[in-house]
């Protein structure tokens, strides 16, 4: 069965104990419903990732105007000059 602590850590969600209890119960209910997919024999059926008959879309590798750095940084919670500021990563 689902290990909520493991999944929450993978999803980078700090959940309260109450949230863990509620979400595990609800998600397990939903998964029980989803298990009805196993009624279908899908051996040999190609998976569909998306419906358009297209593969990679490339463009010429040429220099084009892009978002000015200042605009890109304007929504940052914390910045330092031309950089995003984050908590210390390397001790």
């Amino acid at each position, binding site marked *: 069965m689902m290990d909520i602590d493991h999944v929450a850590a993978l999803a980078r*969600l*700090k959940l309260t104990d109450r949230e863990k209890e509620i979400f595990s119960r*609800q998600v397990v209910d939903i998964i029980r419903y989803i298990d009805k997919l196993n009624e279908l024999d899908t051996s040999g059926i190609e998976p569909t990732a998306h*419906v358009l008959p297209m593969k990679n879309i490339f463009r010429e590798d040429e220099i084009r105007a892009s978002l000015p750095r200042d605009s890109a940084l304007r929504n940052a*919670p914390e910045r330092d000059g031309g950089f995003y500021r984050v908590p210390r990563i390397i001790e």
Partner: protein
Amino acid sequence: MNIEEARSAVIRGEISPVELAGAVFERIGAVEEKIGSYVSVRKEHALSQAKQAEDSIRSGDTPALPGIPIAVKDNICTKGIKTTCSSRILENFIPPYESTVTQRLGEQGYVLAGKTNLDEFAMGSSTENSFFGRTKNPWDLQRVPGGSSGGSAAAVAADECIAAIGSDTGGSIRQPAAFCGVVGLKPTYGRVSRYGLVAFASSLDQIGPVTKTVRDSAILMNVISGHDPLDSTSAAVDTPDFTSALGRDINGMKIGIPKEYFIEGLDGEVAGAVKEAIKQLETLGAVAVEISLPHTEYAVAAYYILATSEASSNLARYDGVKYGLRVEGDDLIDMYMKTRDEGFGPEVKRRIILGTYALSSGYYDAYYRKAQQVRTLISRDFRKAFETVDLVVTPTTPTPAFRAGEKTADPLQMYLSDIFTISVNLAGVPAISIPCGFTSANLPVGLQIIGRHFDEESVFRAAYAYEQATGWHRMRPRLQE
């Protein structure tokens, strides 16, 4: 007033764009407190757009949307104007760029009436999952407007705009359109650029119009459709003049009625209204035949694996670094985890957990791959059906609008309210919901008309013929005191 009427009044000089915008803001002022359609309204910005439209008309331009106030769902980026996705995590996000859809609306002279409320990140079917509070159904304030484009549908129904734009991942345009008695179209996947639409489930998301009439839907599709190099999933197909499909008779058109949609759980009054609508289409010359879409009952299960998996990946970007909320923590990982816990609401967290679980090591084949295979079967059902019929006609929803709070405690029941709209997203085909009657409690019922890939024209043709023959679209809610 609809787009068609407003445009001709503006072009003939009977009303100026500034007066038109003023009238819409007066209406918003009168009813918004009851309905709650909008996350934000920027009156000054709108009036300056209206002024610009006025100047351009005076200099002889006749754009498609001359000063027409249109509301835009708040998950579509508008440069310099807050775009929140009704989430705390983006509460103060001001996009530095414009979505292609609003860019194109702007080129045709539209006025942004405001940004409409949604279920957080478009995850929900009732517009109750918004950080900014729930939107109410203008037909009955105790009931939900549907979701996730509930703000857009309620704003159109309550005349708080002339038309609106929504997005549809599993029914998020069509279901609220049905609940609010308006017209909602989910175009073919790839028809409309999604550049600037905040991603939820990228293989399913599509932008479309919410309008008062079928003609307005076609008018907006003429403006927003077409290939866009900024969206690599936008299809390189020509945009026809969708309005030229309107008014053509439907004599001999074959419509398929899938037996899997008339099942236990379908509300009796909804079934009655839809069956009447099918009779009406037959009276207009269409030939109705029973068909089978045998994998219909698996659509919701496949969808909730695929959509949540894609969402868990797409929403990884909200990390408290580049934009949005940051909650300080002991270290970087703790900062991520606290930011996301406080920034996201319960439904978003629930879906991230489900999607993360489905994609986690050891479960991928059992869930994600399995769901993708079932998606193939569902697509084949439609392909097979469209070998013999031109359109598929169904109810849009199994019930009319439900009461606020009725399904919030049971996520699975909420998910099952999308049972008739989800297959269409999985197959990527276009579908419209149009009003087709009312229940005894005076709640609107929606008729869904589904077409082949890139054949919105047949969808419009049948929808318009039905609309003109019945006139349900002229019904307006009397807002309760």
